[in-house]
């Protein structure tokens, strides 16, 4: 269990709602949920959530910290924004789910090998290193995330698609050796670094306030 997780448990002991309000993106909206269930019914992957959004909101209020943060539910969000468009109270549900997922990640509570969490990391690393996403590398990164043997199997299974993408000029094997990148890459990376520092400081500041 991470130190940050332990610190947050002690800080907010028994008040998970306050913890979410302070530390999760758009978390201050959680208390506004009126439990109608429209979000859960509108979610394209609804049946795959162990706890659909409506339930997550109730669980937060009931203090089910461990169950919520270690759930893979939030990682089922496809960012379709159906829930936001339909919520009668206007809760930014998509962002709250993303926020919970990221918060769980910061605290080290994401289930091991959660594929969307892993893909999210691969994607972010790609964009952070070049300023633009390298589609070939994120594809390969995903195929090979569970080792070389599995990677070769995955790549073979997808070889027809790869060839079709190349043939239609929609994939360039040379991207492997660099690819599209920013001219001011160092400035871009300094910007991201600063943004990350600000975000971390924010968590310490807010998390440090009286609960």
């Amino acid at each position: 269990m991470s130190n940050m997780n332990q610190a947050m448990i002690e800080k907010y002991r028994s008040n998970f709602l306050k913890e979410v309000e302070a530390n999760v993106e758009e978390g201050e909206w959680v208390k506004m949920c009126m439990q109608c269930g429209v979000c859960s019914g509108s979610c394209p992957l609804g049946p795959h959530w162990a706890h659909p959004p409506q339930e997550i909101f109730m669980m937060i209020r009931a203090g089910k910290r461990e169950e919520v943060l270690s759930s893979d539910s939030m990682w089922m969000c496809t960012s379709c924004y159906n829930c936001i468009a339909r919520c009668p109270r206007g809760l930014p549900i998509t962002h709250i789910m993303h926020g919970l997922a990221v918060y769980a990640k910061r605290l080290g509570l994401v289930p091991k090998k959660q594929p969307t969490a892993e893909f999210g990391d691969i994607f972010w690393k790609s964009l952070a290193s070049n300023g633009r996403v390298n589609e070939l590398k994120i594809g390969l990164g995903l195929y090979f995330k569970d080792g070389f043997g599995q990677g070769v199997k995955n790549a073979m299974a997808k070889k027809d698609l790869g060839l079709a993408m190349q043939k239609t000029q929609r994939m360039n094997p040379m991207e492997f050796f660099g690819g599209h990148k920013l001219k001011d890459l160092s400035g871009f990376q300094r910007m991201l670094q600063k943004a990350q520092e600000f975000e971390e400081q924010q968590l310490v500041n807010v998390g440090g306030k009286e609960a």
Partner: protein
Amino acid sequence: MAKREYSFYPGCSSQKKASADNYLRSTYTMCDALDIKLNEIEDWNCCGASIGYAGGGEIPRIALSARNVALSAQQHPQQDLVATCAACWLSTREAQERVQHDATVKAGVNAALAEIGLKVEGAEPKARHMVEVLIEDIGYDELSKGVTKPLEGFKIAGYVGCQTNRPFGIDGESFENPKYLDKMIESVGAQAVDRYDKKVACCSGALMFSEPEKGQALVRDIIEAAYDGGADMIVTPCPLCQMNVESYQSDINQKYGTKFEIPVLYYTQLISVAYGQNAKKSALDGQIIRAPKLEDLANK
């Protein structure tokens, strides 16, 4: 001088030999035909798309779009920022909205931008999707006036998808049954599938990569509904929708015993063809599932 000029944000998939190369090419062809000049934002960066949140959190993610907004304002003042990718457009608008309404976000983002001598306020420039340019600045009537090769005899399912529709959407359209894509299809002389019930269903977005089985089940329904409506083709305004709906059809066929083989095009390609551009210029050679009937018309 071109009739209209915009600051252009193509996005990662619309780069040379990236997955929406055909979108990029047909966008330029369409814009030439419509006398629109696109001024690409120099050194634009990735918007983070719908999965960037997982690695980047809040402030770094929003800083990405803020950099693009600031560069656009600096390089092309007075010009609207136009994106062709749904996620690019959404992320840019979302970033502007957050910066405007959340003082902490604004402080964080501007602290990050200060590293490279940039700054954002919020509302300017206006971030728009290319379909808004077509609908609002040009209009369906003017669009149809320039058609030299009407797409007669084509029945097309207008697949809007999620992110050009929610949460911001197109002015005057409903989230549940937007009509703009159908109207665009009809403006170029084709017939839109009436009551296409999966028009705003999700293609699974980035989860197609991490949860392929769940994603393919969603796409199966989107394609099946298009066939049920008698469609020859599907058309979409989103590069990820295009990729997800087009390129996994053989996987879906294998898994579900279906016989899907339906072309999935961009509105930019339809308009290019209808405006008399040939198949190559309309980037029809960029389709994994080719649209021979449309290619014939384009090359006639």
